[in-house]
């Protein structure tokens, strides 16, 4: 408030002096007393109101340095009995200055010490925080607004009472997460009291003694991103090239930076076959599906591979160790005939049904093929009834399953079935379907009246009732 008042008084005094020099605003244009009328037009006279408007506009314009020039020009020393002693400004940081992570909360302050014996001898000072990032050559001002210390802003004094001091926080710096490089970051303060300008770094009175510094130097480090739970997920230990192969990892970055994860797939000699990259956030799972990226083709079947990841947060890039996999099973092409079904005529749901299909390997040798039998009824749609690995030779192999594929809910329903194999056949398909003859018998209970289960049911009820009756009679009827 005092500072503003002083400024206004000074400006007013200056304008008053201008008024005296240039005369009243009603004076006509031209300094020659009107003798040059009509000769090219004289310069327009600026009124006091115009000047105030210009100064006010300049003050509001943050980037306009003219205002500060006018302010410094118009500054008038406060009336005091002694000479003004310039205050000492320190950088103040009470903490460990090394190994600071970018997400670590920081509190950077300035400490201002004034030894003037009277408040009236002090000057208003303006403080601007300067920053020099790692690798940069010059300081850059980062204060949105200056911190202004007025005459009465000194909150404390030392025990002897021979100086007053105060501190200011710099809200511009709360952490260093936006830093794109790591290393030494430096801070200092530019100070101005309207007459002199100086920095905390070049003030000879400032001696570095923690927590007071002329130039505050912080050593910033970065925690490189890592990958957890790295795994290769496949349905089989030796998947075929077209089967789902999922590269899974969990991304961890302590600074929550965006992370670039690159998967490198190599052969056993560590020659890179292919790579793929995903940009992800820290804390998420990153998944590379082999099928989506086309990592493998039929030419790769029967080969073994390794993989590793490269992880980068834009500052540090790290490689994971190498992992084995996948070991791709050799793929073949099959010749498949129509499937067959033999069952008893009654076709009860509890009976065995014999399903078979003839397959042969189009290529030389024997191929191990997983063949599954699935059955379909409206109650149980494509339920796996059996599955096994079969050696399919070039001469042909009959794959068969004698199973009970149906449940009681399937009774009185029509059905179909299919063989599903993990190699492709002559039609580039991996299944062959057949339709069952008629419906499954409607009978629900497996046994007849003259059977052991029926007799046991009948006798068990009689026995339970008799035993129960004996117990009740003894307990309640005597």
């Amino acid at each position, binding site marked *: 408030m005092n500072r503003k008042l002083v400024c206004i008084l000074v400006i007013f005094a200056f304008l008053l002096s201008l008024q005296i020099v240039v005369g009243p605003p009603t004076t006509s244009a031209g300094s020659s007393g009107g003798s040059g009328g009509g000769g090219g037009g004289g310069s327009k006279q600026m009124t006091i109101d115009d000047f105030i408007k210009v100064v006010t506009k300049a003050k509001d314009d943050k980037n306009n340095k003219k205002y500060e020039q006018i302010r410094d020009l118009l500054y008038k020393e406060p009336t005091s009995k002694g000479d003004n002693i310039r205050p000492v400004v320190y950088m103040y940081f009470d903490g460990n200055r090394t190994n600071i992570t970018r997400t670590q909360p920081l509190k950077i302050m300035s400490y201002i010490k004034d030894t003037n014996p009277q408040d009236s001898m002090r000057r208003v000072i303006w403080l601007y925080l300067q920053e020099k990032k790692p690798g940069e050559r010059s300081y850059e001002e980062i204060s949105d607004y200056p911190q202004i210390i007025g005459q009465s802003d000194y909150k404390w004094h030392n025990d002897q009472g021979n100086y007053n001091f105060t501190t200011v926080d710099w809200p511009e710096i709360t952490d260093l997460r936006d830093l794109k490089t790591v290393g030494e970051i430096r801070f200092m303060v530019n100070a101005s009291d309207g007459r002199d300008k100086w920095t905390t770094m070049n003030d000879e009175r400032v001696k570095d003694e923690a927590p007071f510094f002329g130039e505050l130097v912080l050593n910033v480090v970065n925690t490189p991103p890592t990958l957890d739970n790295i795994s290769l997920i496949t349905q089989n230990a030796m998947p075929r090239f077209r089967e789902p192969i999922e590269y899974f990892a969990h991304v961890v970055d302590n600074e929550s930076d965006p992370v670039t994860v690159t998967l490198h797939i190599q052969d056993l000699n560590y020659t890179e076959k292919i790579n793929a990259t995903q940009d992800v956030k820290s804390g998420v799972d990153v998944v590379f599906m082999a099928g989506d990226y086309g990592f493998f083709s039929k030419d790769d079947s029967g080969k073994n591979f390794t993989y590793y990841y490269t992880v980068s947060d834009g500052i540090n890039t790290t490689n994971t160790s190498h992992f084995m996999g996948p070991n791709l099973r050799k793929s073949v092409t099959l010749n498949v005939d129509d499937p067959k079904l033999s069952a008893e005529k009654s076709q009860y749901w509890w009976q065995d049904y014999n399903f078979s299909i003839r397959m042969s390997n189009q290529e030389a040798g024997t191929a191990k093929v997983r063949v599954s039998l699935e059955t379909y009824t409206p109650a149980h749609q494509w339920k796996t009834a059996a599955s096994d690995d079969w050696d399919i030779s070039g001469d042909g192999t009959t794959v068969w399953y004698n199973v009970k594929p149906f449940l009681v809910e399937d009774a009185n329903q029509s059905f179909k079935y299919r063989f599903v194999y993990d190699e492709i056949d002559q039609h580039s398909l991996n299944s062959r379907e057949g339709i069952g003859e008629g419906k499954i018998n409607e009978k*629900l209970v497996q046994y007849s*009246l003259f059977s052991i*289960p029926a007799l046991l049911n009948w006798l068990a009820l009689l026995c339970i*009732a008799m035993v129960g*009756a004996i117990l009740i009679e003894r307990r309640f009827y005597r």
Partner: protein
Amino acid sequence: MTMGLFPLVVILVIMAGVLVFHYLYVDKIYKKVKSTSNSGFKKEELLTYLELPQGSNFNTFMIASWMLFFVALAFLFFQTPGTSPWYYFQVIQIASSEFGLIAFGLAVMVITALAAFNIPKVYRYYIVSRSIKALMVNFSLLLIMISIALSIYIGTIYPQVDDLSWSLGYVTLLASLILLIMPIVCSLKEVAR
């Protein structure tokens, strides 16, 4: 198939009629005794004095018979659809298993336990002749077990139906019920007098 609500209602009406008759019988005796005596006593006291021991074997057979009577009734009317929206074969997993009927029978026994344990107590208030006792012991349980066997047969052929088996099952069940209520029916004359 003759299954339906009516045959069940017939059985239930007979049972209800017998129950009503029993209460009338006891009430009539109470009034008669009270009219010939000046001393005031309660009906409960009279019932205690009226109790006649029927023998352990007879009681045991009657309790077992009534337990199995309710099982046979449930097997006949609630095993397959026809009587109620709820029936045993809706629980298809249990119904199709080898020992599902035991589970069904046990469930019925638990639900009707109170009735099956208490109804035979009624016989205490009636004079049951030796011949009637022999008839009841020898044939009521047998008829009930025949009815249950026929119901099991109906279950094994489900969803096919056999009207003859069901009718036979019903007749045997009805016959067993008549045997079971015979001591009370025989006392009709006493009440009518």
